[in-house]
């Protein structure tokens, strides 16, 4: 964790590369397991910043895999981080596998050893415009009214 720069708040996650293997899959920065449902659209979005002391471009791969034996990956998409200032990157995809309770969302990082920071990493249901910002605590009477009108 690093507090020298952040997109939001005071802290961000700095990925420090020591050795590049040339294969992004050889190292991952991943979130703990989350549930996903099949045949639904999801979006991964995050802010990143490449360390200007190293290079202006840095490849990473968005990765989703399960914790089952052999850790099968079911989504992978390469992105090029191309800014030494904070910039948002996103990718929307269809989860076309059976229902999952143990998906690991994250970034594959071993293709390059160029350092970078990430912040505000989100995995949410829907496309880029569907994100509900923050946690808006629903009012129970409002939910109750919706339920009554639907039944």
């Amino acid at each position, binding site marked *: *964790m690093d507090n020298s720069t952040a997109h939001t708040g005071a802290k961000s996650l700095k990925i420090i590369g020591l050795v590049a293997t040339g294969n992004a899959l050889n190292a*991952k920065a991943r979130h*703990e397991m989350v549930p996903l449902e099949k045949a639904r659209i999801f979006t991964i979005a995050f802010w990143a910043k490449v360390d200007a002391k190293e290079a202006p471009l840095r490849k990473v791969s968005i990765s989703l895999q399960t914790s089952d034996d052999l850790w099968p990956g079911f989504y992978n998409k390469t992105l090029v981080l191309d800014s030494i200032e904070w910039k948002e990157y996103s990718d929307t995809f269809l989860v076309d596998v059976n229902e999952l309770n143990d998906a690991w969302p994250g970034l594959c990082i071993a293709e390059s050893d160029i350092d970078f920071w990430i912040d*505000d990493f*989100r995995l*949410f*249901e829907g496309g880029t415009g569907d994100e*509900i910002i923050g946690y808006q605590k629903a009012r129970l009477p409002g939910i109750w009214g919706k339920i009554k009108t639907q039944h």
Partner: protein
Amino acid sequence: MVKIIYVNLFLLLVITSSLNAQNTWLLGQNRIANGTFEEDEVGKPPRKWEIAKGG
């Protein structure tokens, strides 16, 4: 009796939605995973994240 059924149905829906990503929109959010890192300690790995070897 009808009110009791409605209340029970409502509670079931709320509990289900909190457990199931499909229905999180009902509670006003659709975020499944996040990394804002504000609760994590500087100099240490973030708590909900792992830097791992793989593939």
